[in-house]
């Protein structure tokens, strides 16, 4: 098993290197340079030329790349032009918002998906199973952003149950109120994300339960007279839980990619909205940093899932 994990991590290293080169080249390909923002009618072209020279912008690209990587390892991602703030600090502030949203969404997703999956598997082919199948089918097909827009319309504007913008109310005082207000702002996007993100877990759990129903240990438990409820709760569910835990990593990647839409619709100040804003202001340092961070988080999410799976399922281990 350690071999699998080690191999998996070794493969990761070139991937990260290629990603960083790609991101760097894309940033170079974007129009403008780091001093475009400071150009004004009073700026002397010769001075800007000088600034570009001492900052190494006329060096060959591999040299510039190397400098960039060295800065990266010192935690220096450059300066944001739009916000006039170090990118590291800017993103750190937004990242907590995104991660809280992702965390609440994930907790809600599992809270809904686990009972549904077991229930559907237990009543295979009967009415509850059909209802859950239709539900997963519908949620799988509809593009997520359409649901977000309809959700904010119905629950945010028409019914007025939830706030429609921001991450915290302006008049929130004291830590209890602050936390409450933050949670209240997260709730609607999290519920919508969870409702429409259960498909994989429900379907996987359902087929696991159906397989387990006919296995020997369940038959033994039945023969010993264990009540049906306890069989599902303790025997089957316990056994199916670990592979389901492996989905957590993939869920993170899915949520991150969805965060761009969620945060745009709800004007929620996280990394996704920061990305969209930075694109419209052409704030290249922020864009580069965000693409890199998302790529690495994607990688870590998949790595986590693969490790859990290889621990749980010996068949996919490398000999």
């Amino acid at each position, binding site marked *: 098993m350690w071999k699998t994990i080690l191999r998996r991590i070794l*493969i990761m290293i070139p*991937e990260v290197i*290629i*990603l960083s080169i790609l991101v760097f080249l*894309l940033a170079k*390909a*974007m*129009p403008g340079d780091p001093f475009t923002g400071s150009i004004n009618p009073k700026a002397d072209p010769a001075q800007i030329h000088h600034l570009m020279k001492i900052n190494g912008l006329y060096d060959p690209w591999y040299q510039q790349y190397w400098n960039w990587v060295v800065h990266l390892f010192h935690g220096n991602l450059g300066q944001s032009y739009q916000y006039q703030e170090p990118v590291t600090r800017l993103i750190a502030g937004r990242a907590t918002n995104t991660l809280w949203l992702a965390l609440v969404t994930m907790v809600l997703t599992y809270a809904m998906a686990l009972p549904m999956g077991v229930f559907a598997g237990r009543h295979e082919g009967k009415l509850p199973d059909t209802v859950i199948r239709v539900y997963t*089918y*519908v949620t*799988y*097909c*509809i*593009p*997520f*952003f*359409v649901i977000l*827009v*309809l959700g*904010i*319309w119905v629950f945010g*504007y*028409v019914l007025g149950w939830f706030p*429609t913008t921001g991450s915290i109310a302006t008049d929130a005082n004291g830590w209890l109120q602050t936390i409450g207000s933050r949670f209240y702002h997260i709730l609607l996007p999290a519920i919508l994300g969870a409702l429409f993100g259960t498909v994989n877990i429900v379907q996987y759990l359902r087929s696991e339960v159906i397989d387990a129903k006919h296995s020997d240990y369940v038959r033994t438990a039945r023969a010993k007279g264990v009540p049906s409820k306890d069989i599902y709760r303790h025997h089957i569910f316990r056994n199916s839980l670990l592979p389901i835990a492996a989905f957590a990593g993939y869920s993170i990647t899915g949520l*991150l*990619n969805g965060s*761009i*839409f969620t945060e*745009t*619709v709800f004007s929620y100040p996280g990394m996704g909205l920061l*990305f*969209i804003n930075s*694109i*419209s202001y*052409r704030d290249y340092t922020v*864009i580069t940093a*965000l*693409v890199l961070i*998302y*790529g690495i988080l*994607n*990688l870590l999410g*998949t790595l986590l899932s693969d490790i859990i799976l290889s621990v749980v399922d010996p068949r996919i281990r490398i000999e």
Partner: protein
Amino acid sequence: MAENFNQHSDISAADLTRLSQEAKAEATPSTARIIWDEFKADKPALVALVVVVGFIAFVMIASLFIDTPKMMETNIMNYFDRPGTNGLWLGADSGGRSVAQQLIVGSRNSIGIAIGLTVISSTFGICWGLISGYYNGYVDWGMQRVYDFMMMLPMTMMIIVLVTIIPHYNAITLTLIFSIFYWEGTSRLIRSRTLAESEKDYVAASKTSGTSNLKIIFREIMPNISSLIIVDTTLSFAENIGVETGLSYLGFGLPTQTPSLGTMIANANDPNNITQYWWTWLPAALEIIILCLSISYIGQVIRRAADSSQRQGAAD
């Protein structure tokens, strides 16, 4: 020829036609026939099929009669007209432009891009999966690493970055940019089926008799997994409608002067529009939902037809 043959056997010409007719009747029906039977057995699926095909045909033809530049002209007299006034079925938006006309042209653009994206990305994904699964070994390992790398990229972000880098993009470059990032799902599915398929006896037999690899892949394995390909293509078509509209919604799909279902839903970003002028965005949102549900449902029916144990139509 038949008479010649009959001189040396005691089967008459009439017997021969009868026998061949019987054989025809007992033979497995063609794929198209099976799928059609499945649709006939499932009425909602037939409705979905009629809705999707009819709607796409209507949109393609109707948009020919709409003068897009004229439609996109601002007409301040019709500012936020309610549906049904001034001969505007679905009202007008902030520029006094007819929502119904924009919906038709926008649907054509969105569906057109989705079709283009499906054709390009599926073709590429299928070839990738077939080659990767058939050759196995080092080729497969290398191709899998490329796959892993593509999966790691934050797709939405990469597309947005590429769209901002390319100075003059249009529907075709947009489709190509999308295609770079949306072939992975298909390729993984096709690869796993090809892996299983290439271990079968017919492939081994074909190899021994000296058939070229390319011919085995495209003339022998591909037809055998054709049902999977049809199902996957249908489902990714539904998904791709979401891809283009989603990016256009964010403002990084089609340019603003070209209506798309996504840019119409983006009207909802304005708090005034979303509450008071619902007709500027709600029809587009509902249309996407209905289209995606219908297309996926058609895909499900084809999947059922491909799997003989699940068929509902024409008991065999």
